[in-house]
């Protein structure tokens, strides 16, 4: 990092390059610390007042300080960066600094294994650099396999903003518009020259501006795990086997570290001791020594002592590692929602075995062409219980593989039945469906852009797990600012979890429409159900009118419970009354009618004239209210089904009573919506079997509800 004096120059109102560069380094180190990567890092400053580096000699390589040797970054380094690194007043040649870094890398990586060597230069390029040895430096970089990255206060090329990578563009670059100094322009040319000679095509991609870097470094690194190979053989029967290697490809990832408990005063873990004692379940809580404890298992109500040794001996054993095909089945037989486990394993052939590659490829392609999957027995190793799972064919542009996903055992499944939603009460109307349609249209996350290509606005698998981000944010805050409360969530993280802005704007109107079309009312639940007597006054039938009219939802709820049968001996008159009260405040809704008809059925099951009379009272009330509210269909359909069941249930006597009272269907004349003509209504009361000519009386109102109540 360049800490020379020009780095602290800035236009008024702008952060000096020094501060920005420092932030870039801080963010970078933080990410490394929390990702717990094994990457090692050194820090070399140039432009320092003093000089401290192994190459200093004869006035060469002056004002360059190796601040920290190659080590795994930790909080110590972060604190040093925060507290010890200040702008200084000298200048140093950035090419010299580069040489010092190369030397450091060479010496300090000796005997270590490494994947990549990178030198990151943060500078404003304000110092004149001597290009004499540029070619030698480039050659050395090439031979050592060192990658270079430059972070500059300004963007490197004019075309960087516009082109290609959509992610990278961003807010304006202060300083970008201003003309660069002559040194800077020369420096930039040199940087470009170096980068292009190292990597002819993408060299310039490794030149970043401080601003862009900060934006990209704002999130903590995602958890990365080195995939471990699981070599095995895929077998089909006894004589066909294919060598394979499995890797976890998708896995429900968790944080590596767990919280440890420490003493609040000393913050020391060792000061806290946890001890578990065992005692008998008697009055004295007699303590039992650990040695006197054996293990057992429950078998229903029995507890079976079963020692670990016995258990080990008797437990299910198998031959260990295996990936054996049980058979093949159509992909449509596998239901996605029955996937189990928390991982997906990709299965390849070993990279050095092309015969296995061809054999596996034949299987993958065969499955793909037939639209089938392999059902396999999978065991990770001898200690792990075997699973059953499906191996799906997966053909990508650059590779082919099988994808293994665990499937359930019989024991894992629970078969629940749910009431059908094809229920008159719930079936949405056309208007409602079209409201939902326009909502879906307005909230489509995948759209074709101008070029006709599909664009996915929200790829959730590109979002880092917010739990981890928040966790590290808080840990970092506590480490750096001890004694202060935890910070609020980062705005970018919050935004990442929300609807894309385009969508939330677009869906406003359709949402309003849905709100209008679908009435939703929260039901307030009462804590404890009371008895009918408490709800409706004593069992005297004296109704508590106030209560009944009070809150319709509450009333509905109570009624529902009555129908469920948790209240005993609700008298019919009470039922009819509630029904009446209810329909006064709410339209004849299906559940209410349902409860009433249920009660009617109950009454009818006691084949007794007394109960028949009560049933008829109920039916009359039902009819009455239906007419009043102009809703005929529920009542009519009930009465029709009742009529159909008469012969089977031997309710002819009841039917005769009903006919006498002339309780028939609601006709068009009474309620407009009815599908029954007056004539049909009259004919209705004539049972087919008997063919009795009952003079159907006119279907006029059968009196007041008050009268009905009196009748009971």
């Amino acid at each position, binding site marked *: 990092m360049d800490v020379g004096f020009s780095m602290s120059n800035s236009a008024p109102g702008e952060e000096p390059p020094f501060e920005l560069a420092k932030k870039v380094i801080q963010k970078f180190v933080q990410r490394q610390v929390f990702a*717990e990567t*094994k990457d090692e890092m050194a820090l070399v400053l140039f432009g320092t007042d003093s000089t401290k580096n192994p190459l200093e000699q004869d006035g060469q390589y002056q004002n360059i300080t190796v601040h920290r040797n190659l080590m*795994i970054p930790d909080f*110590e380094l972060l604190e040093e960066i925060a507290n010890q690194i200040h702008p200084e007043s000298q200048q140093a040649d950035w090419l010299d600094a580069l040489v010092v870094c190369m030397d450091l890398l060479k010496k300090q990586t000796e005997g270590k294994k490494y994947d990549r060597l990178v030198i990151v230069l943060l500078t404003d390029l304000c110092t004149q650099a001597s290009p004499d040895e540029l070619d030698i430096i480039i050659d050395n970089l090439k031979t050592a396999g060192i990658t270079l990255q430059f972070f500059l206060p300004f963007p490197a090329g004019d075309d960087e903003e516009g082109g290609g990578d959509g992610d990278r563009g961003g807010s304006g670059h202060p300083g970008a518009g201003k003309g660069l100094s002559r040194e800077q322009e020369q420096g930039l040319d040199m940087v470009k020259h170096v980068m292009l000679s190292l990597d002819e095509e993408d060299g310039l991609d490794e030149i970043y501006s401080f601003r862009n870097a900060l934006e990209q470094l704002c999130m903590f690194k*995602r958890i990365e795990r080195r995939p471990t190979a699981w070599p095995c*053989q895929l077998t089909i*029967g006894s*004589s066909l086997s294919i060598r394979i290697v499995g890797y976890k490809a*998708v896995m429900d990832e968790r944080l590596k570290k767990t919280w440890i408990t*420490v*003493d*609040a005063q000393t913050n020391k873990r060792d*000061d806290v*001791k946890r*001890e*578990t*004692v065992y*005692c008998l379940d008697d009055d004295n*809580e007699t303590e*039992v020594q650990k040695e006197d404890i*054996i293990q*057992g298992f429950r078998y*229903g109500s029995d507890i079976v002592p*079963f020692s670990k040794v016995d258990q080990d001996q008797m437990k299910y054993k198998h031959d260990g590692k295996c990936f054996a095909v049980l*058979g093949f*089945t*159509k992909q449509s037989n596998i239901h996605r*929602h029955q996937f189990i486990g928390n*991982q*997906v394993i990709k299965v*390849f*052939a070993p990279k050095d075995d092309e015969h296995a*590659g*061809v054999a596996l490829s034949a299987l993958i392609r*065969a499955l793909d062409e037939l639209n089938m999957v392999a059902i396999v*027995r999978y065991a990770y190793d001898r200690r792990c*219980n075997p699973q*059953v799972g499906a191996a799906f064919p997966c053909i990508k542009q*650059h590779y082919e593989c099988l994808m293994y996903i665990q499937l359930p055992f019989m024991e894992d*499944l629970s*078969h*629940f039945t749910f009431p*059908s939603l094809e229920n008159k009460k*719930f*079936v*949405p109307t056309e208007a409602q469906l079209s409201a*939902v*349609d326009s909502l879906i249209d307005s*909230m*489509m996350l995948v759209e074709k852009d101008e070029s006709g290509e599909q664009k996915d606005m929200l790829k*959730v698998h590109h979002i880092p*797990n917010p739990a981890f981000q*928040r966790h590290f944010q808080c840990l970092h805050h506590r480490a750096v600012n001890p004694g202060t409360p*935890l910070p609020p969530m980062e705005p970018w993280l919050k935004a990442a979890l929300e609807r894309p802005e385009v*969508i939330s704007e677009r*869906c*406003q109107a359709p949402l309003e429409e849905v709100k209008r079309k679908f009435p939703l009312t929260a*039901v307030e639940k009462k804590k404890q159900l009371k008895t009918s007597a408490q709800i409706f006054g004593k069992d005297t039938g004296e109704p508590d009118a106030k209560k009944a009219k009070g809150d319709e939802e509450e009333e509905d709820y109570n009624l529902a419970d009555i129908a469920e049968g948790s209240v*005993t001996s609700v008298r019919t008159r009470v039922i009819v009354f509630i029904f009446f009260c209810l329909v006064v405040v709410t339209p004849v809704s299906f559940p209410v009618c349902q409860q009433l008809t249920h009660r009617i059925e109950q009454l009818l099951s*006691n084949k007794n004239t007394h109960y028949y009379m009560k049933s008829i009272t109920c039916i009359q009330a039902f009819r009455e209210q239906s007419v009043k509210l102009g809703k005929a269909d529920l009542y009519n359909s009930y009465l029709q089904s009742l009529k159909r069941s008469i012969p089977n249930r031997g309710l002819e006597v009841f039917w005769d009573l009903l006919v006498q009272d002339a309780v028939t269907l609601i006709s068009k004349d009474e309620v407009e919506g009815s599908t029954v003509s007056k004539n049909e209504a009259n004919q209705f009361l004539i049972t087919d079997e008997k063919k009795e000519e009952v003079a159907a009386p006119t279907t006029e109102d059968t009196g007041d509800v008050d009268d009905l109540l009196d009748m009971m």
Partner: protein
Amino acid sequence: MAEWNAYYRNEDDEEEQEEGEQSGGEYKVTGRDSLVFLVDASKEMFIKEEDGKPSNFDMTMQVVRSVYTSKITSSYRDLVALVFYGTEQSKNPRNSFKHVYVYHDLDEPGAKRVQEVDELRGSKGAQLAAKTMGSGETSLGDALWCCANLYSDIKLRLSHKRLMIFTCRDDPHEGDSVKDRQGRTKASDLRDTGVIINLMHLMKPGGFDVSLYFRDIITPPEDESDLGLQLEPCAKLEDLQNRVRAKEKKKRVLNRLNLCLGEGINVAVGVYSTAVPARKPPPIKLYRETNEPVRSKTRVFHTQTGSLLLPSELKKAQVYGKKQIVMETDEVDSIKKFEDPGMFLIGFKPMEKLKLHHHVRPAVFLYPEEDDVKGSSCLFSALLKRCSERNMFALCRFTARRNYSPRFVALVPQEEESDEGKGQITPAGFNVIYLPFADDIRTLDAPQLPCASQEQVDKMKQIVTKLRFKYRSDAFENPAIQQHFRNLEALALDMVAPEDIEDLIMPKVDQIDTRLGPLVQEFKDLVYPANYNPETKPAAKRKTADNGGGAEKKPKVELPEDELRAHVQNSTLGKLTVPVLKDACKKFGVRTTGTKKQELIDALIAQLSS
């Protein structure tokens, strides 16, 4: 404790699979579930079918047994009773009911009960039943009354009460209207106390007419609209088993929450889990002398002063970058909290955008809760319908519980499907598929290998076609769990050896070989060169094993102490392998509880940095 934990973790947590917040979750248990089997013991039940099929009674006993054992394995705390009616003999708590025989009263099922049910199976079972109980008059009213007493005698709190009537007689009292009425009254009394009565009607010559009598006995179906819809009687054991299984478990909602479409548009939904990995139940600690269970008490105290520490005197910490970062316990909780439990609609995507391999957890199922928000079912149903017709899924943000961080989920529509007997195969609702975050997806280097030619592919297609079968998700039992319970059963019932289990997920190698015949060799000839043997490792890698003299493993890497200390100093311990770390632990006398790398590292740091 630590030992046992470590032991079980080792066995059960395959490949370090942690089950932390599996969607299976814990249920809030507020009471015991109970189930009474009320079985008709009339002569008709014992009539054997001509074609050797089991009698209705035999079939019922098999089902009862399977429910007993499944309760033992999955929910042993549920109470189960077995009562016969229409018997000659009577046996009930106060012997106040004639022709009712309480074979098992309401209690947790155990090994002995399973045995006793077994004794009633088959032709011997029929003889035994005839001897002990006989067949006599029927009074369903008395039988139901007796069952009501069973429930009321239970002092425990019952959360779910169910009664299943198994019979093949649709008119049990043969026209006796007094008895009919009595039965109806008692049934209604039972229902009034919250008992759900189901009918498992069995085959009867001429058909079983539910409307004749039982229609008034049973609890009306949940789904009010199809009061008229009645199931066909069960003829097959499998059907009966399925039907009982579907009813036997209470549908438990994991939690109820709101699916929020936008400001003020909240649809109440219930979350159900339909596929959760069943696990071996944990062991119980027993006192060696008496075999009685012991309780464990955990105390936290200060090492120096020995005084007990209250939760307020403790804090939580993690170490990163050689620095211990300390937080209050409630801060740890607050970090996890993002929002209140609920589902928030983000948008919609076409189904093809749901990738097969985006799987991180078992799915859960979503169904509207009309009781919480009126109108939920209608809007839910509209969403379901349109998503299904337009082949879309809804993308939502989902916070399942308090202090759970959100995850993105795909709501995939599922339409209702029924079998011919009008039994529901799949219910209507949304399957909730958990989607991975960037952290959950690993970068793999796929090897570059040649592809197969069409000829090779076609040969494999022949093999695949020969080995086709129709996969059913309930076709495979878990051999490990089955074996465990067979072992327990054998021990509990003093059997000489546990019953053998059939390992259903073992490939039937012989059958496969016969079916494939010469195809295997033909395929091998097409893809493998003559000298290639896939069973062995490639030659280059085998050298060490060949001349190394057999079992000799890699020479142990001894790590000098100063090097180890340097690793601790530079926090580079992570670079060492697990065996090396274990050796180091041994060498420095560090006792470790776990075998995970991180635990070894933590232990070594604790030892060497102090």
